[in-house]
């Protein structure tokens, strides 16, 4: 029954991808490696056999085009193109969360540096300025006052990339020195953890320390709703404990999970592989 071939679309082999390769082997799945830096995409499918593709590329733009091509070739993908397009963009994610009635921090988006100052004033200081795409807590700025806002906007404007001229302004949530990450696979929150940091950015990639959290209760319920709001699949949902209760601030469509695996002991890679194999057979 295990004659499936899993296409692993990837950039680099981190511990996550290594665990995925091991989990595939343990399940008797053949793996076809599809390197995002080497693969080419003709309009008509040729040259690859995968029955389903698991996207592990770390590049949002490469992911988007590749997933669209795989779908065009009739090959299902985890996650789906639509999910990655939504969840990979903070602007679109915030809209989807709000539309689904999920508590989320206030956000105002501006499309020019001039409007960005207005957006910051509308949100009020301190505020958080984020690039719509990209993560690991990079290029985020906490803006404490107007003077700082003017300096940061000037710097962003000097960066040539179009991504830097879209301004995503989020309210600064007064939270404890931690946030929550819930890992959703299909209809289940498979693991969750707290990320502690004295830095206001609690990314594990920035050295936050972790401890396991219960995947149930209000947190689990919100995480599942948030995952569904962006189309579902394999998603990491980030939540903060605001004074008014839990809020969802991000949904990651190609999440890392080494810190989570370490903190909880859950075989996240195995859960992903079971889900992917199931999806391929549907």
């Amino acid at each position, binding site marked *: 029954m295990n004659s499936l071939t899993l296409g692993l679309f990837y950039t680099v*082999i981190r511990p996550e991808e290594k665990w995925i390769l091991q989990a595939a082997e343990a399940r008797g799945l053949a793996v076809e490696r599809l390197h995002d830096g080497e693969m080419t995409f003709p309009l008509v499918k040729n040259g690859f056999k995968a029955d389903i593709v698991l996207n592990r590329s*770390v*590049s949002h733009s490469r992911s988007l085009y590749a997933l669209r091509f795989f779908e065009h070739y009739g090959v299902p993908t985890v996650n789906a193109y639509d999910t990655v397009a939504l969840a990979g963009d903070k602007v679109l994610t915030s809209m989807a969360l709000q539309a689904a009635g999920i508590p989320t921090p206030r956000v105002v988006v501006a499309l020019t540096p001039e409007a960005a100052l207005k957006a910051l004033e509308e949100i009020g200081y301190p505020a958080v300025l984020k690039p719509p795409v*990209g993560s*690991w807590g990079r290029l985020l700025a906490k803006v404490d006052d107007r003077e700082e806002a003017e300096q940061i906007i000037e710097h962003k404007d000097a960066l040539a990339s179009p991504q830097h001229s879209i301004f995503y302004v989020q309210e600064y949530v007064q939270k404890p020195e931690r946030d929550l990450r819930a890992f959703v696979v299909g209809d289940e929150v498979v693991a969750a953890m707290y990320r502690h940091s004295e830095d206001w950015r609690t990314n594990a990639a920035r050295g936050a320390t972790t401890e396991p959290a219960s995947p149930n209760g209000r947190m689990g319920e919100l995480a599942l709703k948030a995952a569904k709001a962006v189309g579902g699949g394999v998603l990491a949902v980030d939540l903060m404990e605001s004074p008014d209760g839990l809020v969802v601030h991000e949904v*990651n469509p190609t999440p890392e999970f080494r810190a989570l695996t370490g903190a909880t002991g859950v075989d996240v890679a195995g859960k992903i592989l079971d889900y992917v194999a199931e999806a391929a057979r549907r």
Partner: protein
Amino acid sequence: MTECPECAGTLQRKDMVEGEIFTCPECGTELEVTSLDPFEAAKAPKEEEDWGE
């Protein structure tokens, strides 16, 4: 065994797969396994703007 492209330190192959990211134990540079047999490593790809978890 091969040399780190950055510091020429000695790199052991251990239990690695092609494409794997690892850190040079001598200089801390992030490296990528580019070939297993013969064992070769190059500097890991540089982080790009749209990369992220």
